[in-house]
């Protein structure tokens, strides 16, 4: 593998995938928190909250991610001068995380909401009947069961998120796909090899992730 035996190229490859990991990790965490809040809003008895949750999902789920990332860069940063870090690279990273999170949160919310529908109405009734408030009922009884019911779909959302992080390359972050493009530019004779290594790395990580979530879904399934 002549391209990758050059230490500079190999380091670029490693750091490209490290960015992918960091983008995925930070966005997954933020999207999960946001998605849980949004799902709570969508089933809440307060109309304004329901409206807000629905608006969020409809806007971000139906806007191409590329546009959202561009908006973060050209809108939030270039036009509105919102900076998330003094370091230019980190600033791009966080702009990317914001875009990925608001987008992915819409999918997390919808996955959870379909999970909430699998929880029998009697569960929430019993919770209310012993005196739990609405938010306690949601947090302690409904969401934990809904979450377990949608572990496999949430796994798919995570896998999609991981692949989607490559879009942050378009606003200048040297993540894996950007590194790949550079390597291809500099090594026109080894395009197929470079492509296979990068694609293979994604697959090598994501295939086990998929199986892990499948296993987890089985293990944590709520027996009724």
């Amino acid at each position, binding site marked *: 593998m002549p391209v990758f035996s050059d230490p500079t190229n190999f380091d670029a490859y490693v750091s490209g995938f490290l960015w992918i990991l960091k983008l995925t990790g930070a966005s997954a965490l933020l999207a999960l928190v946001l998605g849980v809040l949004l799902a709570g809003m969508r089933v809440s008895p307060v109309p304004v909250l329901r409206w807000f949750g629905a608006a969020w999902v409809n806007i971000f789920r139906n806007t191409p991610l590329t546009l959202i990332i561009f908006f973060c860069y050209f809108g939030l940063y270039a036009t509105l001068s919102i900076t998330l870090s003094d370091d230019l690279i980190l600033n791009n990273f966080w702009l990317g995380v914001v875009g990925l999170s608001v987008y992915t949160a819409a999918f997390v919310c919808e996955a959870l909401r379909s999970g909430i529908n699998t929880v029998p109405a009697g569960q929430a009734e019993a919770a209310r009947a*012993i005196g739990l408030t609405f938010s306690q009922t949601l947090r302690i009884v409904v969401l934990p069961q809904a979450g377990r019911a949608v572990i496999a779909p949430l796994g798919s959302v995570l896998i999609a998120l991981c692949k989607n992080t490559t879009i942050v390359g378009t606003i200048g972050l040297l993540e894996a796909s950007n590194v790949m493009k550079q390597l291809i530019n500099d090594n026109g004779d080894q395009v197929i090899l470079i492509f296979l290594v990068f694609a293979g790395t994604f697959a090598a990580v994501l295939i086990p992730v998929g199986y892990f979530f499948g296993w987890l879904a089985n293990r944590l399934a709520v*027996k009724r």
Partner: protein
Amino acid sequence: MVAGDASQEPLIVLDKVNKFFGDLHVLRDVDLSVGRGEVVVVIGPSGSGKSTLCRAINRLETISSGQITFDGKALPAEGRALARLRSDVGMVFQSFNLFAHKTILENVTLGPIKVRKDKPEEARKRGMTLLERVGIANQAGKYPAQLSGGQQQRAAIARALAMQPKAMLFDEPTSALDPEMVGEVLDVMTSLARDGMTMVVVTHEMGFARHAANRVVFMADGQLVEQAEPGEFFANPRSDRAKDFLSKILTH
């Protein structure tokens, strides 16, 4: 006793309660009062509004007009006050509704810990005592799906009792059970009644009504058609609807 003593006034009072589901008039001018320590059995044909009546008492169902008073106070409309009221009224459902992702003991201690803010250690101790009382202490660590229907329903009763409620509502607690498990649940309910618990019980178990109830209330088409002490009601039902209903259920 002093006039107006709290122990003299009824615990639950329904005054001209009406309930509509859309155009469907499900409760019609229902007046009912349940005294402290009284056991009232509600019977009536399917669709007559028994569940709705039961659920209205802890406001799982809102009412369209009229008033419901519990322990001298009108039912709160929402929020923490409503949650507090609900914690004073135990409810047992036909389909048990045990929290499927929690063990039996966790089911019983959840309310005390989260609502009454009891210390977990104390809640567990009292929870185990309650599970012993309903005869399933040895199942404490299992999940609801691992228990038989009768065991689940007894756990659900323990869960409601853990809140130390002033009254218990039962909506057909034995209807989802295999026949051989009905007895064990009725035994627990009978012992509760003997201990002086105020109970409203929707049931088709006429044996329970005869032995444990102070009063039988017969509902049809959303109305309280007649109410009487059980011996009297079963021997001499006055309304034609009640006679008809009894002839149907007592023949099998």
